[in-house]
């Protein structure tokens, strides 16, 4: 914290300056407003207590995001102890969803269609991000949690298994289903619709 301001004034400034950014960062990952607000509070309180360790080598926001990422992992760890019955049913359904794309011999029954644009070209469009967000929301919670940790945050597989107490086989299977479903959801709700409009 700067020497020029009283610590409590500076603390209030951190909330005003970084609170909303940290909230959006957390909300996009935990997908729950109350949890995201709690995570912002935990992050800022931890940062203020540890402020003498902030050496200024990185931007303050980068340092805060680093703390928030640890808090999100802690949150997921706590959540993973609660296995939701609805989640298990949804994962069972997911198995059937993936299976329905293949015939009995394991060949594609519904092969992936050609897309008219790559997701990395349309990601700047807000509407595309809304569709992606809605596709992520449709995943069972335990599935989106693993996808966010592994594919968005790039957390190592071993760290995820250790932190969430799941087996590597469980991680690989769940990630495969999450990726399969997200690709399909985007195909149905974005790429096929865009192709229809252009027809």
């Amino acid at each position: 914290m700067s020497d020029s301001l009283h610590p409590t004034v500076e603390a209030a400034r951190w909330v005003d300056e970084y609170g909303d950014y940290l909230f959006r960062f957390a909300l996009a990952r935990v997908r729950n407003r109350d949890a995201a607000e709690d995570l912002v509070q935990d992050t800022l309180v931890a940062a203020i207590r540890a402020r003498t360790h902030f050496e200024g080598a990185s931007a303050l926001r980068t340092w805060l995001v680093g703390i928030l990422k640890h808090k999100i992992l802690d949150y997921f760890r706590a959540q993973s102890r609660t296995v939701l019955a609805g989640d298990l049913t949804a994962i069972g359904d997911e198995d059937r969803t993936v299976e329905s794309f293949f015939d009995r011999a394991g060949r594609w029954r519904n092969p992936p269609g050609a897309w008219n644009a790559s997701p990395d070209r349309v990601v700047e469009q807000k509407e595309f991000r809304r569709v992606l967000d809605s596709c992520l929301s449709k995943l069972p919670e335990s599935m989106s949690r693993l996808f966010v940790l592994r594919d968005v945050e790039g957390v190592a597989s071993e760290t995820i298994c250790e932190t969430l107490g799941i087996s590597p086989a469980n991680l690989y299977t769940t990630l495969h289903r999450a990726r399969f479903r997200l690709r399909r959801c985007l195909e149905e709700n974005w790429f096929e619709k865009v192709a229809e409009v252009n027809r």
Partner: protein
Amino acid sequence: MKFPTCRNIVASWSESLDRPVSLGERLLLWAHCLLCRPCRRYMAQTQAVRESAGRALHADSEEADSSAPQLSPEARDRIRQAAEEAARETR
């Protein structure tokens, strides 16, 4: 030797993103993809989805217009009080 099916190949490919794979596994994936356009397409599209998800979440956090999610006034007050309290405790 039994050759893997498309169903097995896409699952193996996904697994290869999360753990080190042997040379034999890599060769099987490569050989299958050489001959199978749907699997090649699936992998390319899924890889693009993975990358765009990271970029989209980042872009959402950066979005600061009035329609972007914000802390509720109650949460902001509560967090400000907690932050000020932490600052007082650690002066």
